C-alpha cells in the first residue's frame, strides 16, 4: 500500500447529525465494554449495525484515520522525539516529500509555508527514537535522501508533553 495519505485534497465529507453525535460520543474514546457499538447505538438511539456502518464509512472517506490505541511515546520507550525541519528547494519538495514520508521511521511528513527570515523550513518530518543518537542517525538518512535539494535543517526535540487530548468538538 502507498504511504501517501488518503483523503488529501478531496472535498469534505458530508456528515449528518447522527454522524456528528457519533463523533461527540467517541472523541473521548471507545466504550470499554463487551459490545461497544451496541452501547453507542443505545446512546444515539440507533442500531449497533448502523454505528458500525457509519464508522466503516468514516474510515473509507478518511474522516476516521483508524480506530485504535495511541501510546504515549515516552511510556513505550521512545524518549527522543524530534521534529526535523528542512529547507528544501521549492521545485523539488513535492518529489522528495513522499520519499521522506516513505521512510519507515517517519510518522508524519508535511509541506508547510516558510516564515522568512526566521524560519526557512518548508518540510517537516517527525522522527522518534529510543535516544537522541537514534534520532540523529535517522535524520542523517533523511539528509542523505534529500541530497543537494537540502539547504539546511534543524531538529526540534520535544522536552515535555503539555497537552495531548486530540480533537474536541464542542458539544
Amino acid at each position, binding site marked *: 500500500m502507498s*504511504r501517501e495519505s488518503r483523503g488529501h485534497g478531496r472535498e469534505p465529507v458530508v456528515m449528518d447529525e447522527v454522524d456528528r453525535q457519533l*463523533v461527540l460520543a467517541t472523541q473521548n474514546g471507545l466504550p470499554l465494554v463487551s459490545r461497544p457499538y451496541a452501547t453507542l447505538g443505545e446512546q444515539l438511539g440507533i442500531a449497533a449495525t448502523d454505528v458500525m456502518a457509519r464508522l466503516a464509512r468514516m474510515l473509507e472517506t478518511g474522516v476516521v484515520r483508524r480506530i*485504535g490505541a495511541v501510546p504515549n511515546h515516552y*511510556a513505550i520507550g521512545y524518549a527522543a522525539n524530534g521534529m526535523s525541519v528542512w529547507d528544501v528547494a521549492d521545485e523539488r519538495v513535492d518529489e522528495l516529500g513522499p520519499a*521522506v514520508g516513505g521512510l519507515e521511521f517517519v510518522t508524519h511528513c508535511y509541506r*508547510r509555508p516558510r516564515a522568512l527570515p526566521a524560519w526557512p523550513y518548508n518540510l517537516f518530518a517527525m522522527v522518534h527514537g529510543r535516544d537522541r543518537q537514534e534520532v540523529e542517525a535517522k535524520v542523517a538518512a533523511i539528509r542523505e535522501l534529500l541530497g543537494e535539494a537540502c539547504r539546511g535543517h534543524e531538529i526540534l526535540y520535544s522536552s515535555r508533553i*503539555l*497537552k495531548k487530548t486530540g480533537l474536541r*468538538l464542542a458539544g
Partner: protein
Amino acid sequence: MDDTDRAIINALQGGFPLSEEPYREVAAGLGLSEAELIARLERMLKDKILTRFGPMFQVERMGGAFVLAALAVPEERFDAVAEQVNALPEVAHNYRREHVLNMWFVLATETPEGIARAVDRIEAVTGLKVHAFPKEREYFVEMRLKA
C-alpha cells in the same frame, strides 16, 4: 508495563474490528480473555501509557481545520502561558520543544474560521505572536510506533 501490554499496544495500532464483540476478537488473537484485555486497556489509559483509545478523526475531512502553530515564550512565563494556551478546547496537543520557538501546538477546529479566532484569542491572552504553519501538502501520516 509487561510483554502482554506491549503486544496489546502493537495489535491495537492497526484497525480495531467493526464487529459485535471486537474486544473478544482482539483478545482471542492475543491469547487473552476479553475481560483481561479490557482491564489492561483501562489500566493503561489510567496510567497514561495510552493517551487514548478509539477512532482517530481527521477534522479536515469533516470540513474543519487542523493547524500547527508555535510561540516563542519567555522562559519565566512558560508555565503560565502553557496554562493559557491549553485552556482553549481548540488546542488538541501541545509540546515544549528546544528552540527559540519553544511551544508547538495543534489547533483543531470545526470550521476554517475557527483557527483565526483561536489564534486571535491566544495572541490576546498571552500578548505573544502566534506563528501558524498550516500544512500545504500531507506526504505521510501514520502514528504507529512499535512498543
